[in-house]
Each structure stands twice: as structure tokens, then as C-alpha cells.
């Protein structure tokens, strides 16, 4: 199946439609809630939580013996929350730093989860096959019920987000101020963290525990490059997330052997790379262009200043001088002289130049603090 076939089939095939809708919704939710994780400098918390969810899935299976997605995800939610609060406990009550705490919880929980998974594999229960899809995710296993769950979670988180918009925003950017205003910062903090955990948990089936954190981070990091407004960023992140979900699923559906998780992550990474380079405000490309423009501008003004130094000693400021006398000065080329002329700062007569009135004024005010219209 090629990608174009996939999109043709999308409108007719029920299964494909379910899967695509599911990954789109998932991407949107992750992008939305991931924005908070990125802005709160909790990017790697997502990584720790998603790994910490694994033993929950395995334990839920061991206890119930059934492979009901909702039960397994509930287990994942509980163990993800335990991991989160343990990380908080470690960083607040001991002198271990947050990076150590995150790495500890991530690897210890995951190791325990893998122990349980390998233990389950050896059990005679025939039902056990397929639990390892939670490692790298398999969007193909999404059914309508799962998508409904995602929609419900998305709806609730959107509702809470709008309800607590002001509180979330103020906590995000100035936690101390929020506290002095009398907001219950602890509650809001826990609320945000809870929804981040929730977003991770519902993504486990599609993207898997190993790569779920990227699903949370990448759309938000990409969206951050295009805007400085929280609202716009969240919407953009949701859009990026949804597109990565859909394209990732489409690509992985066209190949038999590919898990969805890695492909979605790579698509999201492409979004990030594109945004890093091409975003107009912060992107590397435009930053380099601006940088060069500024440098050239500075160079021009340097030349102009040098000319001003010569011209101000003359009664007639527009008295022509030989270009030769600029020789001992590094910052001029033929091109820069032309540019100076274009700006109407100097006039060129063959091998001579003369400062114009505007150029003289410009050079005179170069170092003054007066606001300049230019």
C-alpha cells in the first residue's frame, strides 16, 4: 500500500478511519498538554512518566488476567502517578537533583515493568501475547472504543484547560505572583501534572512507553518557535501533533514491519527541524539573515562615521574627497559605497565621494540617544 492509496482508502475503510482519527486526536491532545510540559521545563518528566507506566500495565494484567485496554491504562495511570509523586518526593525531601530523580524513576520502573513482562510471558495464560505492543505502540490495534476514550479524555482536558486558563497561565509564567494573588498553586500544579500524565497514558497504546515523551515534546517545541502567545502555541502544537499522528500512522501502515511509535516520532521531529530553521521570528535561517543584515548595516555606519570624521572639518560638507583616502580603513568595498549612495548618504563622482546633507545628519546622530525613525 502506498501513501496515496492510504488516503484514498481513508474515506471508505472503517478501520483506517478509526485509527487515523485516533492518532489525530492523540496528537492534538499531546500537543496541547505538552505545551505546558515544555514551558514548565518539565520536558523530561514525560519521559519518566511514560516509562514508569509500564509496570502498571503489567500489574493490571497480572491482577485481572484480562487484556481490556481501559483496565491496563488505568494501571498505567496509577503507576505513572506514583512515579510522578515519587520524583517530587525525591527532589523535595532529599538533596538528589531532579535529573537524577527522573533517571532513577524512569529506569527503575521500566526495569521492574520489563521484569513483570518477561515473567508474564512465561505464564501459561494464552492471553498474554501482545502486551509488548505497549513498548513501541501499534496504532493498528486501536478500536472504536479506544478512540472514544481518547475523545473523552481530550474533551475533559480541553474543558479543564478553558476553565482554569487564567490559573494555568499565571502559574506557568509567574508562580510566585500566582501565590501572592492567593491561588492554590499546589492544586493547579497537581492538576496540570495530572493531565500531562493522562495524556501520556492514553498515548501508550499508539506510541508506546519508550517514545511517548517525544510525542509530548516535539509538537510543543515546534509550535513554540512560531509564536510568543500561549493560546496560539497550544493551538499550533495541537495541529502539529495531529498531523504527525496522521502522517506517522499513514507511513507505518504502508509498511508491515514498522511500529507506529518510531514513525510518528520521526514525523514530529521533521516538524521540529523545519520550525527550528524556518520560523520567521526565532528560526535559525532568519536569525542568520538578520545577523548578517545587522553586521552589514554596522559596517556601513562605520564607513559613514569615518567619512563624517573627514567631512566635518570642511566648511562645505559635500566637498568631494578621493576614495583613496578611505584606504587605510577596512570597512568599505565598492558594493558598500554603492549601498551608501542608494541610501542617499553620499554621492559618488568617479573616484571621489561626497557626503550629502542627510548622510551628514545621520552620521552626526549615530551615537546620540535620540530616537531615530530609521
Amino acid at each position, binding site marked *: 500500500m502506498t501513501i496515496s492509496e492510504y488516503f484514498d482508502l481513508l474515506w471508505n475503510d472503517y478501520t483506517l478511519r478509526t485509527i487515523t482519527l485516533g492518532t489525530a486526536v492523540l496528537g492534538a491532545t499531546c500537543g496541547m498538554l505538552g505545551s505546558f510540559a*515544555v514551558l514548565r*521545563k*518539565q*520536558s*523530561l518528566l*514525560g*519521559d519518566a512518566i511514560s516509562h514508569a507506566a509500564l509496570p502498571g500495565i503489567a500489574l493490571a494484567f497480572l491482577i485481572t488476567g484480562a487484556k481490556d485496554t481501559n483496565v491496563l491504562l488505568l494501571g498505567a495511570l496509577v503507576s505513572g502517578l506514583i512515579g510522578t509523586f515519587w520524583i517530587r*518526593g*525525591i527532589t523535595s*525531601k*532529599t*538533596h*538528589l*537533583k531532579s*535529573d*537524577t530523580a*527522573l*533517571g*532513577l524513576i*524512569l*529506569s*527503575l*520502573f*521500566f*526495569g*521492574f*515493568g*520489563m*521484569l*513483570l*513482562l*518477561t*515473567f508474564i510471558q*512465561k505464564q501459561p495464560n494464552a492471553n498474554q501475547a501482545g502486551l*509488548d505492543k505497549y*513498548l*513501541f505502540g501499534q496504532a493498528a490495534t486501536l478500536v472504536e472504543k479506544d478512540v472514544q476514550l481518547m475523545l473523552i479524555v481530550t474533551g475533559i482536558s480541553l474543558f479543564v484547560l478553558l476553565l482554569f486558563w487564567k490559573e494555568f497561565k499565571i502559574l506557568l509564567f509567574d508562580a510566585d505572583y500566582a501565590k501572592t494573588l492567593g491561588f492554590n498553586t499546589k492544586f493547579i500544579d497537581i492538576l496540570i501534572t495530572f493531565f500531562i500524565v493522562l495524556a501520556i497514558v492514553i498515548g501508550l497504546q499508539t506510541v508506546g512507553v*519508550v*517514545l511517548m*515523551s*517525544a510525542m509530548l*515534546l*516535539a509538537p510543543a*517545541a515546534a509550535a*513554540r*518557535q512560531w509564536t510568543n502567545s500561549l493560546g496560539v502555541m497550544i493551538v499550533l502544537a495541537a495541529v502539529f501533533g495531529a498531523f504527525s499522528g496522521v502522517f506517522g500512522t499513514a507511513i507505518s501502515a504502508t*509498511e508491515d*514491519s*514498522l*511500529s507506529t*511509535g*518510531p*514513525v510518528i*516520532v*520521526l514525523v514530529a*521531529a521533521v516538524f*521540529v527541524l523545519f520550525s*527550528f530553521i524556518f520560523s520567521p521570528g*526565532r528560526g*535559525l535561517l532568519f536569525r542568520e539573515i538578520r545577523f548578517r543584515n545587522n553586521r552589514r548595516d554596522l559596517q556601513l555606519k562605520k564607513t559613514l562615521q569615518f567619512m563624517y570624521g573627514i567631512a566635518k572639518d570642511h566648511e562645505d560638507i559635500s566637498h568631494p574627497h578621493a576614495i583613496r583616502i578611505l584606504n587605510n580603513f577596512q570597512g568599505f568595498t565598492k558594493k558598500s559605497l554603492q549601498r551608501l549612495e542608494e541610501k542617499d548618504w553620499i554621492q559618488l563622482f568617479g573616484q571621489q565621494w561626497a557626503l550629502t546633507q542627510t548622510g551628514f545628519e545621520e552620521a552626526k546622530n549615530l551615537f546620540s540617544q535620540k530616537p531615530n525613525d530609521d
Partner: protein
Amino acid sequence: MTSPQIEIQLIAAVVAVACAIPGVFLVLRKMALISDAISHSILPGIVAGFFITQDLNSPLLILLAALTGVITVVLVEAIQKTGLVKEDTAIGLVFPALFSIGVILIAKNANDIHLDIDAVLLGELAFAPFDRLLISGMDVGPKSLWLMGGVLIITVVLLLLFFKELKISTFDVGLSSAMGISPVVMHYGLMSVSSITVVGAFDAVGAILVVALIIAPSATAYLLTSDLRRMLWLSIGFGVFSAIGGYWLAHILDASISGSMTTVLGIVFLLVYLFAPKKGLLSVLYRQKQQRTEVSLITFLLHLNNHSEETERHINHLTEHINWQTVRAKTVLELALKNNMITIANDIVSLTEKGTDFTNRALEYIITNKDDRIEHMKDDFFLFRG
């Protein structure tokens, strides 16, 4: 014990020690998560190396993959330098992308590569004894034992050679630069050693569990001591203990060895986290409770000192005035009584001479905020032992 069993435990122990040594410095330098990033992102390097060498234990593959690890660090730092995203986001973006490439490479070439996803996550410690190193036809032991042994020896030699430099550059970057030790060289040296260790251990314990072996022993040791040497020894001890304990746990449960090694590490960490004598959770909570009581006591004594009128010093009035619960008020009262700071006559509390003296000195400290005012009080009184 059969000979493969001993060999597995030996390999596990060597891996644990080799991971614990760089782990101590990573944890102290607050770069623990770099090990997570490296362990994930070496995967494409390993796959590429495997295409070239066709042998998971080849030293060339180790070097290639370790190079990928160092490249990851450079990449993360380059992204950080652009200032487009925060440091942690940079880590979180780089390694999943590289890891995804590795996973996809493995999936696409599943027929050509004897690497499967489970091996990536869990390693193949149980099979390690079957891959023997033959030198001119003679069986000298499992390949991975020689490999990890080599990595361990290099690590130990480097540690002994550069112990002083590592120590200084870890705790005081400024001083180390002033003394002519380049922090950059130390940084990338440590990163390279970590990468090589991670790659070497990858075969035995897998991509994610190697993070546990790096971070957990050092973090556990850090809760018990503040001395670098002792921390190194302790974390080596925890590593070896969990390697051998983990092997037997896996033996009983018939489950993954690396998974149970991590679980043992987790249990050890949990115990130390709860019960460590000075920095454990319980002792921290106990200390915090004590400090609260001590602060309450000072408040109480200052209150008494401020009021000479009897109504203000009536026992029932205190609960009301300082806004304490009855139980708390009682604790504080008893504590003060026990230390002969107050006397109670007809339900009226008054300061004793000792109490007045103590209060005045505490007041002086509060006003001047000079530590030398309370220096001698630390011995005389139970307070301020901070």
C-alpha cells in the same frame, strides 16, 4: 552453580562496576539524564556498526556506537546553544528521534540483523556465556566478559589517572579552569567514557536498563555519604550486589535478568531513600517536625518575654493567642518545662532565669542575624543544631 551461571554473574558484576564509576560523576555533575540520552541514541550507531562488522561484540562496533553517543551530546549542546528550546527539551528531542531511526533500521532489516527489539531493551545476558572468545582455537571465556572487562580496566585506569582532575572539575569548575584543567576536556572525556560503557553494557543489559545501572547505585550511595571516594566504593558495592541478587531473583521468577537486576536496585534505593540515617525520607521528616517544634518553642518563649501581665500568660490564653492546636501547645509547653525554661504556677506561665537568658540571646540573634551569637548556644541547648 554451573559454569555458565558463574560466568553470567561475573559479567553482570563487571557491567555493574563499569557503569557505576562514570555514574557517580554524572550524578554529581547533574547530568544523569545524559546517560539516558546516550543509551537511546547509540542504537543507530550499533545498527550501522553491525552492518559493517557483523559482530555485536566487535571493538570497532563499540567505537562506532560510542561515537554516536558523543555526537548526541554535541548535538544536544548545539541545540541548547541556539536558545530555541530549554536544555531538557533539547535532550528530550534528540534521543527519541535517534532511537526511532535505530528501531526503524532494525525493523526494516530484521532478516539481516540478529538484533531484535527485545534485545535492544533487555539485552541478552542469559546468552552471553555461549558466545565464546577463541584465541587460536583455545576457549578463553565469553566474549562479552573480555569486552566489558576491557572497558572496566580502561575506566579504572582513567579514573586513577585523573581522579584529582575529575574531582576538582566536578565540584568547582572555576577552580579547575584556574588550575589549568580544562573543563571541556574533562566533560568530553567523561562523555566518551560513559558512551563506551553504555555501548559495552548495551549488549548485556539493554538500552534503558543501563541507565538504571548508571544512575541508581550512585544516587543510592549519594544518599548515604558526601565523600567522593566512599560514594564510589558504595555505588560499586550496590552495583555488584544488585547484579548478583538480580541474577538469583531472575532465576527464581524465570524472568529477564536485567529486569530483575534493576528491580533489586530499585528495592535497595527505596530502602535507602526511606531509612538513610541523615538524608533518608524518614529522618528528613523527623528533623522537619523537630525543627517546627523548636521554632514554636522560640515563638512561645518570645511571647512570654514580651508580656508581663498575667492574663497574657495564662495557659488557656496561649492556645488562643499564638493560634496553636491544643496538642501542639501541650508539646511545646512540656518541652519548655522539661528544659527548665518555664515554671507554671496556678496556670500562669512564667520564664525561669534560664528561659529569660535563652530568650534574650535568641532575640539578639534574630535582631543581628549573626551566627556567632548562637554558636555557643548549640552546645548548651538542643535548639539550633540544624
